């Protein structure tokens, strides 16, 4: 798994675990530890507090993550161009190799339908993905840190050969 996947796994695990604990307390208090003297009006009123907590948590998550979108990345002047054409059911990549440490500008086009361009390293870790749309050019800038063979999988359903739609390219030191 990549770094982002680990962040997702850990935070989902922690939040999910907390949620299960809260629910377990709820079940306990609604059965074994039942106490009929509950002030329902107070509980209903506290929904406002919960509303505030939810808004604060969402705003926090928004400001923690919105800076990490893939939009607007540029390869600058030192970039290596790498045009890739996607078609049912193949990626047509240039025959040349790429250089480590220099930004690569992937220029992605489709000959027919929507495709997804997902790049995996040699350990099968998903590095990035972007949609390829017919009639438009999608660009993704990535700087490879390690030499090796990188694999491409199609990440948008594109017809019966979809799972056969693969490709690869090489990055040299």
């Amino acid at each position: 798994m990549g770094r982002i996947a680990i962040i997702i796994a850990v935070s989902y695990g922690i939040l999910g675990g907390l949620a299960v604990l809260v629910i377990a307390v709820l079940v306990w208090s609604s059965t074994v530890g039942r106490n009929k003297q509950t002030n329902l009006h107070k509980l209903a009123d506290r929904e406002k507090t919960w509303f505030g907590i939810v808004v604060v948590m969402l705003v926090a998550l928004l400001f923690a993550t919105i800076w990490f979108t893939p939009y607007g990345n540029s390869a600058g002047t030192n970039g290596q161009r790498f045009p890739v054409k996607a078609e049912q059911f193949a990626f047509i990549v240039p025959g040349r190799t790429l250089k480590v440490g220099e930004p690569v500008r992937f220029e992605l086009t489709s000959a027919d339908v929507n495709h997804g361009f997902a790049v995996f390293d040699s350990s099968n870790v998903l590095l990035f993905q972007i949609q390829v749309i017919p009639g438009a050019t999608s660009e993704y800038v990535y700087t490879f840190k390690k030499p090796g063979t990188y694999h491409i999988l199609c990440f948008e359903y594109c017809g019966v050969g979809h799972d056969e739609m693969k490709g690869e390219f090489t990055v040299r030191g």
Partner: protein
Amino acid sequence: MSTHVAPVDEPLADPEEMRTAKRLTLRFVLTAQAILVVSGVLGVLLRDSQANLGRLDPNWFYALMTAHGLGAFVGWAGFSVMGLAYWVFAQVGFPVRKFGRVTAELTYWLMVVGVGGIVVSTLALHFAGSWVFLYPLPFHSAGEWGKWATAIFLTSVLLVGLSIVTWCLSVLHTAISPALHAVSKKWHNRFGVALGFGYLWPKRFATNPKTVPYPVIPLTVIGVDMIIATLPLAALLVEMIVQTFVPSAHVNPLLAKNVLWWFGHPVVYLLLFPAVAVYYVLVPRYAARKLVAGNVITVGWTIAIIANVVVWAHHVYLDYPVNSPQAAIDTAMQPLTFALTIVSALSLYSLFFTIYKSDYRWNAAGTALFLGLVSWLSAGLSGVVNATIAFDQIVHNSLWIVGHFHQMALLNIGFVAMAAVYAWLPEWTGHRLYSEAMAKWQIWLTFVFGTANTAIWLVEGLQGAPRRFAVLPGQFLTLSQVGAGIAIVLGAAQILFFWNIVETIRGKVATPASERGGLGVAAAKIVLVALLALLGVAAAASIWLVASNVSKSPSTTTSATPTTPATTATTTTPSTTSTMPANLGGGDPVAGKAVFESAGCKGCHTLAAAGATGTVGPNLDQKKPPLALVLLRVTQGKGAMPSFKSQLTPQQVKDVAAFVVQSTSG
């Protein structure tokens, strides 16, 4: 802002109106369960195929996938809760009046004919464009399905869309019923009352004697939103039907994708919001108290009515071609999507605290509702991951998404549909539930195996497993096989559900009266132990997951064993100095020419480079097939062309494909 505790809702409609609602709901719900039988079996077949237990031909796999998606999501979960809406209305004193009844009838038949057409176009005519049928995929079938399949499929989806619109009309007509006792007789005032504005502005939206029952609010919200959401899709479908026969017609694919998701997001709420209405009716009943809700819940629903139709682009976060405004739209949709989660957070608060310290009845229906809430919370959290662009760039179109929505649709909305059947089938049929114990078994098996089913997809997704792959990359085979086993049990557990329904309708009773009414404290202890066990398993799985990644060094990552022809075909490294198009997949075109000549290809195909002039199959010089298609056809065959898998070695297949691609791509 003052606080209300909603009244316990009692039936107010007169007996004739109750009978109307009963007939409508029963018909919708039973038809939907029949669709579940078919789409559930398809789901298990798909899972088994991915796990290599009964591998399906790729076209067949994707055709079944298309049918399963639409069948289970709209035909079962959607259709169920659409029908339940009429019964919910009747429960809170809102009769379905004449216009509502006519549009409800229309809804039913449009849906039945639409689902029938989808079955025909996918299972009989092999349409395999997936339920999102991303434009222009239906017109690029790679020879697998014809234009009649496309036309019938698109028309059927259009009928389903129209069914949703007529349902909205009947819901809105019922929601603004005079039963509201709105002080103002104007319809738009009653509409505001139905949206719950009376809780916020009691004078402007005055009612007498009481404010609108909470279950009416989500139904009204979705009634408005689904009309807004469906009409643009209907226009796109009409264009696509025309384009099937008039190929010169054209739509911008990115616009079409936006229109699809303009519908595709709200349709999730077509399932969720009526399900919430059912929760609002049944949870207070089993907790024997009123719904614990502050006025702020109305704020949540007001946000939802707007946010629901302006969050579609979170499905296209990774579409941002140059020179298009899509990136800005996508960025704006993250905070809007977050805002939409507020209504779920508030509803979960209200429903959980309605149960809190109450005398909750842990019968089958009560348990299903409670476990539905638990799944809603969990699926909501994985949904927030999808809604966050920084995370979506990893999980997008991975099996994580599949895990997320199966938990939401099957274990939240599905549990509501099942709870409603257990709670109300006796009222609809006048017969006691056949077996409460059997129902409890079904609910618990579904929860445990359904949750495990989802967990496996979530884990596979984080490891980079793509969704909609007939054959997954080899490293996922073990997990997929575990998942397939779980899915089989999950599917088998539903036999208990159908059995219970059939026997109840037949008027049979399996259990003594003393058993009915729940197990009380004993059941609660089981719930408690199961939840803690689940937490333990989840913690262990997380630790294993993280540990297995931390300890991963380059020397140990080659353990992915190629177990299928698909993976062996790609594990060879091509010569990196090649000046030819690099995409020859490791095949040797020179050796391939010999294979082409000796294997009999010349007899059927025209290929100048081999001096072949056959006319039985496609002319390869004209078709210029891509590599993957050649590999697919040579190994799988198609129509009159046999599979050459047993006749040629894997290397010979690659060689001949390389030869065909090289000699036609110049």
